[in-house]
């Protein structure tokens, strides 16, 4: 929240957090201070379900390069699945 660069996206899926698997309903994407990554800022994604409290969170803190590669890879995998008629 020091940068205030954050967006929320609703989504359906499941994540494995500290308390085991849970159904998540939102991803919070920010460019802000990470908690663990040794950088001033990182691309942070928190997969959450607020209904279960703040502990229902699967967190990743990515470098810029890693985040961009992840986006491209997700698109590529989904594209291939579509081409093969699996989606």
């Amino acid at each position, binding site marked *: 929240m020091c940068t205030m660069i954050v967006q929320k996206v609703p989504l359906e899926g499941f994540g494995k957090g500290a308390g085991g698997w849970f159904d998540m309903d939102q991803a919070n994407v920010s460019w802000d*201070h990470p908690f663990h990554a040794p950088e*001033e800022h990182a691309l942070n994604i928190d997969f959450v379900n607020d209904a279960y409290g*703040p502990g229902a969170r699967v967190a990743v803190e990515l470098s810029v390069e890693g985040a961009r590669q992840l986006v491209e890879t997700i698109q590529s995998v989904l594209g291939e699945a579509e081409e093969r008629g699996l989606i």
Partner: protein
Amino acid sequence: MYTTDQYEGMLAETVAMRGANGDRVLAYCARPLGAGPFPGMVLIHHMPGWDEWYREATRKFAHHGYVAISPNLYERSGHGAPEDVAAAVRADGGVPDDQAVVDLEAAMHYLRALPYVNGKIGVFGTCSGGRHAVLVASRVAGFDAVVDCWGGGVVMPADQLTPRRPVAPIDYTAGLDCPVLGLFGAEDHSPTTDEVALHEEALKEHGKEYEFHMYEDAGHGFFYYHRPNYRQAQAVDGWEKIWTFLGRNLAA
């Protein structure tokens, strides 16, 4: 200065107070044992939350002779591991300024009511807490000294104002009625050296008492020994400047 033959005792514990909207807000309070009177300090935690570093810092202030209280500004976002709670607040764009100001004012009044406080209250914050320190001391009467450690967002362009943070703290400078100590890193991205210069200009323009120190080879959070941004020499010097500044301004 502490000497090896001196008695020292400390009480540190979680307490509760009423914050904005009458909400219960937990706070961590540490004080030297004894009748005092001791000066008081409100400590404002950083964006990563009401965490272990802030508990240590609260005890550090008590070690140096202050009754210190650090309220949990993230109280309304639920309870859990500090990181998880802070992540929820980060997703919401921070806590509302108005709410933080009332919570911090309540912490100040909590200290003022204690029989072992000398009537002088300072406020210290790092990161978003540095911004909150400047904000509350500018909007609320009753603080006697402000320590702003690398508070980003004191200067805010219009396009960064939000319903939660509708006014840049720098725009409240006229209301500030106590001295400010600012510690910053020249390599910080928030605040930048240009933003610190703008803040300094505003303090000058309004005739406020302040001292700013810009440390070379330091970025954001250079006190945090558990982060790679830690800078030993700058941190040691910064803490010394804090004790000197507070000693000068909070003595009874």
